[in-house]
């Protein structure tokens, strides 16, 4: 067998060992334990942490870059990328933060990370024309109730029954950390991307039940009932008006025209 036959796994193991603070297996790099090996061990890790920093700006803002970097490096070592599109890297970061919450000074971090992740997914989602309420105007009430509304590919949502997740996220992005100044309550957030810009909107908590029903492809009447079950006082008309105006649904009409690039809203 060629001594170079399993070169690739040995080289990768040597990178991992180096990152864990152990010397590489001498055979992995041809017996040359040269300091230059650190270039390879460091470059990939730096790329991962930079990708996480870009993808989780609210967590960076909350923690500061100095505290974020070791957290990101720890995640990158345990969850190396699978996809070479690094702007999508870090899917499990919120879960990673959640697992650390018992030791964390900031138990809100996982919620912030979830919202950042929703924004990343919305940013990269397929283009699709949005549904205008006028498209449904010709339907009778019964026909409308039987209709299944498809969510726009970019539509995401997140909520916490106990935390004002959107207020905390907004505070983090604005760099104005004063959590004692916000009203503590459960909060839901709707994330949409009608054009090039990802938009955030506070949503009544009952709106989550409606969106989840739509995601399960349930008829509109059933989705509305789910929202009412979540909050008997919900104003369904206002909720639908919000979802339509904030472009949460995909158009029923074919032949979309691509939206125009807005250079002010580029990544």
């Amino acid at each position, binding site marked *: 067998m*060629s*001594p*170079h036959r399993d*070169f*690739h*796994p040995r*080289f*990768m193991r040597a*990178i991992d060992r180096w990152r864990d603070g152990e010397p590489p297996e001498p055979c992995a*790099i*041809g*017996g*040359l334990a*040269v*300091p*230059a*090996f*650190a*270039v*390879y061990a460091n*470059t*990939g890790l730096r*790329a*991962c942490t930079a*990708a996480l920093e870009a993808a989780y700006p609210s967590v960076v803002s909350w923690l500061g870059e100095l505290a974020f970097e070791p957290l990101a490096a720890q995640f990158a070592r345990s969850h*190396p*990328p*699978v*996809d*070479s*599109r*690094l*702007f999508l890297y870090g899917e499990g970061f919120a879960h990673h933060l959640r697992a650390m919450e018992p030791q964390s000074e900031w138990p809100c971090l996982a919620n912030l990370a979830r919202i950042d992740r929703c924004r990343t997914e919305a*940013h*990269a*989602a*397929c*283009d*699709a024309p949005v549904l205008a309420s006028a498209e449904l105007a010709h339907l009778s009430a019964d026909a409308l109730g039987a209709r299944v509304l498809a969510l726009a*590919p*970019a539509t995401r949502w997140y909520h916490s029954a106990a935390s004002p997740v959107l207020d905390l996220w907004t505070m983090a992005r604005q760099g104005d950390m004063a959590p004692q100044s916000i009203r503590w309550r459960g909060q839901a957030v709707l994330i949409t*991307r009608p054009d*090039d810009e990802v938009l955030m909107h506070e949503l009544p908590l009952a709106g989550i039940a409606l969106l989840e029903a739509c995601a399960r492809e349930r008829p509109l009447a059933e989705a509305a009932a789910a929202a009412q079950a979540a909050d008997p006082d919900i104003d369904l008309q206002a909720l639908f008006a919000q979802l339509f105006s904030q472009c949460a649904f995909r158009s029923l009409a074919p032949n979309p025209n*691509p*939206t125009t*690039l*807005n*250079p002010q*809203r*580029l*990544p």
Partner: protein
Amino acid sequence: MDGLSAGIGFKPVHFMPAMQARHEGLWFEVHPENYLADGGPRPRMLAALAAVHPVSLHGVSMSLAGPAPPEPAHLQRLAALVRGLRPALVSEHLAWSRIGTRYEPDLLPFVRNTAALQRVARHVMAMQDALGRPIAVENPSHYLPLPGHTWEEVDFLQELVRRTGCALLVDVNNVHLGAHNLGFDAADWLARVPADAVAEIHLAGHSIDPLLGDALWIDSHDAPVADGAWALYQGLLDRIGPRPTLIEWDSQLPGFERLMQERQRAQERLARHAVAA
């Protein structure tokens, strides 16, 4: 040169001045990985740029020297982008970055033996077949004197060209830097590159290692092109004539005008050779 002279690496922050620039022969290069979203502003921005300027797709993750063939999903996404964008050039690196499902975001070295040559040739062919066009393969930067090579890098690349019909992307800074780090002769390396195969040239700045100092140069793309690299570039142009040349500047990013000044230095050299030719 098919209308391409000196280009620069494109950065989204430079979108507006890039769209407005009207310099003769100007082109832009991008890493396609950054634009392979299903939708949204990333692919739209690239399409807008390509509508105004020639664009080159310079991949960093096909892992041509990896143990396995190119990842099918990535190859399909890239092929779709190439079909839609019709880039002026498509290139990849003579390196690897994937093992199993893991992607390591770096350009890793390998032992250049005949088995590796056969494997890389298969992967280049697979990529070219999927894209329906030849690619250019770039010589990577080197930091480690790996033992066991049975092929010199230039010979390896030349044979790869012969076996696959691919072209070469000669990164002059990588030769400059690798020669310093590993102790070979950069001018000799460049003198042996088959002129007809060179489709593109890269120039970039480098830095010195913060721990090892001048003993190790790092391909950091964060500075102007070094004088030594300019001299090697000049020598290469003297021998092979003008080729599309890219200024790579990826970190410590200056303003667009500063990038264009650096590009102008390459442009002037290319113009002199174009006139002479």
